[in-house]
């Protein structure tokens, strides 16, 4: 069984509710570590414009790059649901960061402290235990997010592997499926913003 995310990019308004809900639920202070961020993609020149938003987080890949590179085996992929989690006791901390180097989606997060241990989205494993969906999913005022067994999400919504601002990596197979927002005019990208900024 592989759990993952569904993201309806046509619904996302970049409201940041998921970002703050995640900070509150997981007690993550404002700073360089944020388990979920919003990418804003701005295309075109005045007055012909296109803007899309994309929540970016850990996609709990089928073949995660982070796991083989971790020197201590601190990152594991759970058998029962494929959620990728970190044992912070084993993590070597900010001095290492091999996992971050390996991840194409910048999912591993490090706080500002010198010996910061890696932290990241765990798809709210604690909430699934209480029969609740992740806090970002449950909080989205646009109902743009869902999470659960990936096969079910693909069957229920869409099996699109692409979205504006997202590149699907076949090698690692991120567990995410989209309803993408599409720029039919093929405008040129002017600006990409990541919020909150990584550093």
């Amino acid at each position, binding site marked *: 069984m592989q759990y993952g995310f569904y993201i309806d990019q046509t619904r996302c308004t970049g409201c*940041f509710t998921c970002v*703050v809900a995640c900070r509150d639920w997981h007690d993550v202070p404002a700073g360089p570590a944020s388990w979920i961020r919003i990418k804003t993609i*701005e295309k075109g020149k*005045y007055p012909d414009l296109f803007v*899309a938003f994309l929540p970016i987080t850990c996609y709990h890949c089928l073949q995660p790059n982070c796991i083989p590179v971790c020197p201590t085996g601190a990152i594991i992929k759970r058998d029962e649901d494929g959620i990728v989690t970190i044992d912070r006791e084993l993590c070597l901390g900010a001095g290492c960061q091999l996992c971050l180097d390996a991840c194409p989606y910048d999912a591993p997060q490090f706080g500002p402290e010198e010996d910061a241990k890696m932290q990241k989205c765990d798809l709210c494993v604690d909430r699934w235990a209480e029969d609740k969906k992740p806090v970002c999913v449950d909080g989205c005022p*646009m109902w743009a997010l869902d999470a659960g067994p990936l096969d079910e999400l693909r069957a229920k919504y869409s099996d699109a592997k692409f979205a504006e601002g997202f590149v699907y990596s076949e090698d690692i197979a991120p567990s995410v499926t989209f309803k993408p927002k599409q720029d039919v005019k093929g405008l040129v990208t*002017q600006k990409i913003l990541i919020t*909150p900024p990584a550093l």
Partner: protein
Amino acid sequence: MSLDKTNEEKIIRTICNSHCGGVCEMKVHVSGGRIVRIESGGEGETSHRMCARGRAYRQRVYAPDRLLYPLKRVGARGVGEFNRVSWDEALETVARELKRVKDTYGNAAILHFCSLADAHVVHHTQAFHRLLCQFGGYTAPWGFISYEGLAFAVGTTYGTPPAAYTHEISQRAEVYPKARLIIMWGWNPVDTYQGTRTPFSLARAKEGGTRFIYVDPRYTDSAAAFANQWIPIRPGTDVAALTAMSYVIVKENLHDQHYIDTYTTGFDMFRDYVFGLEDGIEKTPEWAADITGIPAATLTALAREYAVTKPAILEGGYAAGRTAFGEQFHRAIVALEAITGNARISSGGRAGSRALRRILQIPSPPNPVEMNAPPRWNALPYRSASVNSSARVNVNLLVDAILKGKAGGYPADYKFLWLSNTNYLNQLSEVNKGIEAFQKLEFILVTEQFMSSTAKFADIVLPVCTFLERTDFRTPKAIEPLGESRSQLQICEALAPKLGITDYSDKSDKEWVEFMMTKLSEEVSKAATAPKKEAADLTSEITPTPSGKIEIYSQTIAEMKHPLIPPVPKYIETWESLNDPLAKKYPLQLITPHFKRRAHSQFDNLPWLRDLQKQALTINAVDAQSRGIHDGDMIRIFNDRGEVIIPAEVTERIMPGVVALPQGGWYNPDENGIDRGGCANVLTKNVTSPAGAFPSHTALVQVEKAEE
């Protein structure tokens, strides 16, 4: 009320209510008397899920800069130097000053304003109003800061309060998806929300095939989310565009003559104006193109599409009504709706919590200061005698009234100012003029949660708790008040005996809520038995104008005889337009939009929200380039009223010639009096539209790269 302080986690269900127009469901997790987490309260797609601000509420409650004790000013006004004092000393001081001002100058010298920041039903204006009326009266403000232009337009055209016209939050999910066309005009609900159900309902409409046209100087996040077409427009010129649309519609015979004949009056006079019979100017799309910056062909197409698409919704945001002649914007919208048969009004279905706020109030004796004052010249028929009283001062002009007093034509000289649930200095126009006025006062009392720009000028600051620390209508207390902070009602209860008032309150918060619930049940059962009326059976009962019809020509306005408030909606060029000689010196039009991570100035200090958006001036790449400004550069924004230095955000998402500074940044002057906090109202002008609207989007500025 005793609250469980054990470590067992409890969940309190309440409603976030933070002056955003929303009423979102909130589940507050409490353990050991502390809030440990906050969850969205709603299940299912009919619920109101909180936005980022509500989700950050824990940081607001436990913010290190929360005011937890009464404070007495020791430094100069505005500096922010205070000493902690006891509640008794603070209230004694306040009571002594209130009595002194009353005895020396009379009750009218006491000005009080309570806005909606973290206010609800029990702990709101009426709590203060009752106290001050029992004390012999005070000067109250009139007018809505957010939408007086709309209130005036609806009040004169329909004869009703604005709530009878605007779509209540609870109606939107039903209304929007039914429309085949939605024109969003100066309306950005993705940032302002007015309830998170609003953008969600719009998304549902879009998915159902509704076409969206977005008219605004900015390509906002709402444009990004919904717009099939964006029509940029110069600020303050909306009425020219709307009038040209009326021209096209009538010229091409696309209007609904039957509807006009049956439900409206004054169409002929409006048509005469539109066709230039009155002033010799035909209000053609070509005429409007020069004014608005919208190509004539675009305006023509827009007019045709609106006229022939049914049902179509023309949603005029409050923003374009917050301009120099803001009431004309809403008047022009309702006229266009009426001539196309798109007028919307219904006597049913308005049970939203915002409407309830008006039903649910702590009762009060009449205000003695208003009792013998005649109605104002611009009294609106739907308003109470109290609100229409000429003893009141326009809410936007309190500082003007303080500076000028009777000599300037105001009803009194003002000496004592009590501000509650508002960061008035920061949020109303012309901060530097506000400071001058505040310096002139004999006493300033501020009830606050934080050391706001306004509170820094107070003589006494009383710490108010957040809504999670008090009980109100549908919002039970989750935790005890932090420190020595108290609720609004508690503050009034404690002050009353010191003012010699013995019968202020005989009820606890909970009993007041129960008292109001009884009143509410009566209202609801009354409403339930009244037959629901739709636009199809309009009667004078739901358009209580002098004619009993929708008045495109308003008799109420005609009787006001104000040269700048014409009885039919007209385009009037704003002051500080691009044709103003001042534009040579200050060539950019400043608008001051709402910011997603704040509710006005609230929430600005919370780290969880602060890194989500940078307080910056949005400027088009063309205007930036001609000034040598790059994205992120520090820039000066200035006019004769003040100067702000903050970073520039260079973007394609705003019309050239227009710059936007999000309102609500906390005023933070440096040693030269230059604001470094990005407070937009340093630059806005302290006047109102002729009918009383707050023209927060009419100001000229210049922008330069800052030298540092």
